[in-house]
């Protein structure tokens, strides 16, 4: 019940902001939500599945490019393209994931990195189709998404639907079983879990939502860039999840969004954003490995303990 109120409250605030923010601020807020969704999609795999995934940007990029190519090259209706984009990302995740889950830990991570970079190079090289390093500009969007405000509201709506879906999935028997696999794959296997299949499914589910985030990016900005697939882009949801806290759903959303917010606002004053990002990352890893939500949790339990003592 409290969670429902929290969700509805957050939804009301996000919608209400459309009447308050300037177009620039709305674009920034939409970017933050997309980054939050992207981080959340990764956290299903990394936080719940314990699989460190260095190639998640590939599916973000596939989502974006699928929307761009379907509207630009295939002449599809933008909304149809938007609906198909996550499914195409899911298809890529299904094939790539099938190979990646055959290895564990570091070897899994290296495979995801390699496949991600492979897709990046393919998009980079297929100039005729993808525009290469120029990306694809001037994407069509539905006529009712012409204004900044409408696009912001569209991002808010899709984000909220995805968050609700992911929240439900996070409470499923599937996720409980996945967490068991994360904590102890051997024990889970000898209780009857097909460990690879469990990991493969979450890989595809996470890839699908990354595809949604990528398609949202394409609609919001009306362009896609090959950097969307680059491995450095994969580090953003990792850092976002880390900063926000991998133990929760809200954490990665806050962390992913906060990174964008800081990047935009700090690069206005200094070109040394990457250095500042590095310092922030180090501080989090050393001082708050459970992220912001972990800090809040610790602070709350301490408050509880104090209250108990009194």
């Amino acid at each position, binding site marked *: 019940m409290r969670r429902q109120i929290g969700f509805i409250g957050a939804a009301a605030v996000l919608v209400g902001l459309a009447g308050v923010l300037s177009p620039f601020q709305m674009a920034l807020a939409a970017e933050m939500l997309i980054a939050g969704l992207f981080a959340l999609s990764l956290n299903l795999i990394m936080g719940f599945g314990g699989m460190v995934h260095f190639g998640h940007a590939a599916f973000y990029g596939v989502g974006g490019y699928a929307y761009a190519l379907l509207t630009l090259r295939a002449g599809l209706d933008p909304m149809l393209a938007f609906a198909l984009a996550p499914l195409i990302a899911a298809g890529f995740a299904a094939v790539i994931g099938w190979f990646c889950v055959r290895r564990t830990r570091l070897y899994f991570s290296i495979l995801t990195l390699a496949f991600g970079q492979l897709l990046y190079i393919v998009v980079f090289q297929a100039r005729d189709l993808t525009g290469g390093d120029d990306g694809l500009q001037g994407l069509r969007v539905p006529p009712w998404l012409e204004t900044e405000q409408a696009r912001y509201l569209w991002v808010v709506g899709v984000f909220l639907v995805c968050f609700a879906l992911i929240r439900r999935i996070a409470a*499923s028997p599937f996720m409980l*079983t996945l*967490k068991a696999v994360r904590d102890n794959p051997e024990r889970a296997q000898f209780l009857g879990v097909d460990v690879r299949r469990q990991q493969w499914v979450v890989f595809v589910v996470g890839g699908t939502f990354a595809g949604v985030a990528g398609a949202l990016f394409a609609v919001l900005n009306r362009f896609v860039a090959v950097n969307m697939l680059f491995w450095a882009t994969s580090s953003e949801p990792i850092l976002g999840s880390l900063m926000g806290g991998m133990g929760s759903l809200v954490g990665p959303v806050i962390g992913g969004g906060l990174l964008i917010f800081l990047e935009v606002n700090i690069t206005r004053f200094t070109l040394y954003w990457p250095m500042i990002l590095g310092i922030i990352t180090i501080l989090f890893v050393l001082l708050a490995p459970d992220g912001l939500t972990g800090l809040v949790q610790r602070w709350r339990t301490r408050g509880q303990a104090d209250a108990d003592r009194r």
Partner: protein
Amino acid sequence: MLTVDNLSVAFGGLKAVQAVSLMVSQGERVAIIGPNGAGKSTLFNLISGGVRPDAGRVVFDGRDITPLPAHQRARLGLGRSFQRSSVFAKLSAYDNVLAALTIHRGHGLRVWARTTPQRAAEEALAAVGLADQRDRLAGALALGDQKRLELGMVLATAPRLMLLDEPTAGMSPEETAGTVALVQRLADERGFGVLFTEHDMSVVFGVAQRVLVLSQGALIAQGALRANPEVQRLYLGGTP
């Protein structure tokens, strides 16, 4: 219930298990003893599916399970515990058992459903005496409690044969006695068979109806323990 037929496996040049044959009938309690390195854990892995044999067969419940992977064997009712306690550390004790139950029921891939509280999970937790630790993280439990929790998890999968790899390793004498009584009681109540390895002879004689002796990968004796001179040499100090 379980028939192991001429099972062999070698790692490199080491013949870890050589032509071992054994049988465990329904509800029977059988101990496998032998010095360190005798191949007990390897034999367990061969039976439960962690290691593939070079030769031989494992038949469970009339079915040849030799080609089956470990998770499918578990689903047929072949439960096992590990020598070192093996739990889901970041889940609560209750969620550990609930996960086991979810897996047993084949609900592990239900993405679009809710986990609902299960009385069977509470019961399995209570059966191993951990009802009062319900909400503690499994990783924070005492070692003996972790081993009991693991037992509760296997119990939740309604096994027909439990393979216990040194169920009392690392336990105090009191914990050991408690675990022995627990395994006895559960096996009595639920009628599952137990195949276990153990170094503590009081546990072996307290639980097992039959004892198999493994040495250098081969079964050297079984059954009437005290009459066998080789077993006496290995275990009982040489003099009858």
